[in-house]
């Protein structure tokens, strides 16, 4: 039997058994669809976490006060901001003594109630210096960022993140030149940053930037900083820069045992790796849950194929009596199951992408389309057809024509 005949026979069988073939295929569609949707959602989450981490700067190394607590990492460090061991002077020392540190930006952060023209918002206030824009990839949309002059003079000027601007002045309103009140102190808006995208806590768009000295004078008091951001001049020398900062600060803080360091250095690669491994685990978990439904779909195929082998025993006997070889019979059944899973897989991929688009819309999280996962899921679905179709096909092929023809 030629391949063309095989396909023609297979499609003829499906078209004369539409309901049953459709239902069996549905099992595969649901299985493949959910695997695809879960992978897209998971990879979307992974991508957006990575993007957000990339958005906080490039080749970024962050120095924070406080001791390492069992490697909790950036997001989970409970001591952040509470210890007061880093100062502007540390930042200056890093800037002048560490080779390969392209930009250094100390910052002092707090959350405050901010008001303007009767509108109120609670947002993050970041006191920093001009280098912040280079360290954290911040661009200015309108107006200008804080200058060195304003820092030296502790100017009462503020640069708004677009979300903060929207909250205070209304969406897209012109804010430059207006006044805002941070706590009890009045600041003049001199610029608005470009949106970076992001949401939730630590959203770079929902922030107000003021000179570090102004922050230290008018809002927080003291000369300490809550973190120092350092951008290395290249990806390759990040380790070296991190090591130099570590040595320098140990020396400056007069700590001989590195285990007792009163600061914490993390770099962007670590953050990316941690976050990636978390989201990857999440993706795998979601995909394997969905994989169970795929397995169930595969068993459905096997069940249907076994039923048809029994039901079509006489047909098999007849085909053999008119000259079908074992291979013709087994290929016929295998082709039916592979075609079911193949078509189910194709439809499932479309359905899965559709569902993931809906999920993306509902949870506001982008989903990623990954060609590799689509191709491999497609291959898996065909493989399921072979695996679960093999046994029924073999059973059919091994039927003796005489026994099959007698079958009632």
């Amino acid at each position, binding site marked *: 039997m030629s391949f063309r005949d095989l396909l023609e026979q297979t499609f003829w069988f499906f078209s*004369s058994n539409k309901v049953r073939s459709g239902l069996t295929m549905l099992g595969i569609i649901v299985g493949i669809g959910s695997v695809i949707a879960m992978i897209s959602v998971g990879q979307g989450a992974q991508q957006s976490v990575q993007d957000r981490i990339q958005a906080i700067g490039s080749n970024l190394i962050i120095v924070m006060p406080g001791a390492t607590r069992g490697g909790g990492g950036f997001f989970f460090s409970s001591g952040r901001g509470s210890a007061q061991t880093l100062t502007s002077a540390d930042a200056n020392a890093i800037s002048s003594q560490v080779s390969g540190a392209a930009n250094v930006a100390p910052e002092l952060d707090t959350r405050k109630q901010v008001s303007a023209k009767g509108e109120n918002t609670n947002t993050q206030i970041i006191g920093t210096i001009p280098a912040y824009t280079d360290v954290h990839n911040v661009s200015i949309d309108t107006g200008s960022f804080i200058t060195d002059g304003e820092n030296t003079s502790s100017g009462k000027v503020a640069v708004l993140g677009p979300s903060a601007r929207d909250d205070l002045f209304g969406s897209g309103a012109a804010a430059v030149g207006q006044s805002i009140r941070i706590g009890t102190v009045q600041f003049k808006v001199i610029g608005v940053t470009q949106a970076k995208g992001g949401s939730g806590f630590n959203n770079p768009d929902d922030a107000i930037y003021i000179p570090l000295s102004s922050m230290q004078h008018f809002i927080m008091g003291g000369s300490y900083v809550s973190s120092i951001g350092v951008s290395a001049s290249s990806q390759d020398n990040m380790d070296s820069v991190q090591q130099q900062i570590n040595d320098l600060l140990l020396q400056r803080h007069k700590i001989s045992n590195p285990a007792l360091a009163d600061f914490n250095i993390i770099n962007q690669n670590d953050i990316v790796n941690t976050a990636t491994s978390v989201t990857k685990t999440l993706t795998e978990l979601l995909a394997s849950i969905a994989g169970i439904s795929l397995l169930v779909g595969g068993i459905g195929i096997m069940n249907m194929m076994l039923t048809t082998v029994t039901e079509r025993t006489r047909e098999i006997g007849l085909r053999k009596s008119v000259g079908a070889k074992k291979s013709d019979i087994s290929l016929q059944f295998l082709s039916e199951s592979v075609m079911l899973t193949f078509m189910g897989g194709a439809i499932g991929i479309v359905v899965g992408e559709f569902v993931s688009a809906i999920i993306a819309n509902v949870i506001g999280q982008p989903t990623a389309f990954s060609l590799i996962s689509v191709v491999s899921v497609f291959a898996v679905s065909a493989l399921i057809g072979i695996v679960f179709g093999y046994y029924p096909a073999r059973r059919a092929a091994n039927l003796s024509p005489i026994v099959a023809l007698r079958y009632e």
Partner: protein
Amino acid sequence: MIECTEITKKYISGDTETVALAGVSFRIDAGEFVAIIGPSGSGKSTLMHIIGALDTPTSGRFLLEGQDVSHFDDDQLAELRNRKIGFVFQAFNLLPRANVIRNVCLPLLYGKVPPGRREELAREALIKTGLDEDSFFKRSNQLSGGQQQRVAIARALVTDPSLILADEPTGNLDSKTEKIVMQTFQQLHNEGRTIVLITHEAEIAEYAQRVITIRDGLIVEDRLNGHAARTGELSKGGIVPAAGEAEVSA
């Protein structure tokens, strides 16, 4: 065409052995129309399965067109059936959801006929059996029994086999359609085809040229229709059943 020498067939299930054929020998020449007749359980179908290359004998020699097929494997037998034999079954065995043309084309799928020629061959075969053209694209389960059997005969003819084997082809038909179907066989015989027909009804056997009677796995009579029995084969089996379907404990 067909040469059987001391063919036996034993079925073993559990510890009982059933002898379906106890040693039959005969020849059928090309162009003959032979009926094999005998009571139920006498081994007719078993014999047909062997002649039709659906099964191989336990012992003995079976030559089909001079070729010994006793030791063919399943796939070789399948190819042989496809090229040389056309079957007509009592139960028609059509694909119920398939239309007439598709049913008749079925053997061609497993042969070497190019797809473009299949429908043409199917039509030719159907016309020979006298099925009206209106039915060609009907589903086979929408046809009457007589029509279905004609489709089945056309399916047996479509590969232009040298031998047509029919096992109780009229078993499911009333006497009127029975006559039509038997006339179809006679006509095919007149065209020069070799036909072996299995039946347990004497009237059906009368359509044939030659009648072989078997009982309990042995040939008890082999005669030309309306003529005296050809005693050549008879001496081997004897009239009185010897082993037959006696069940021997192993």
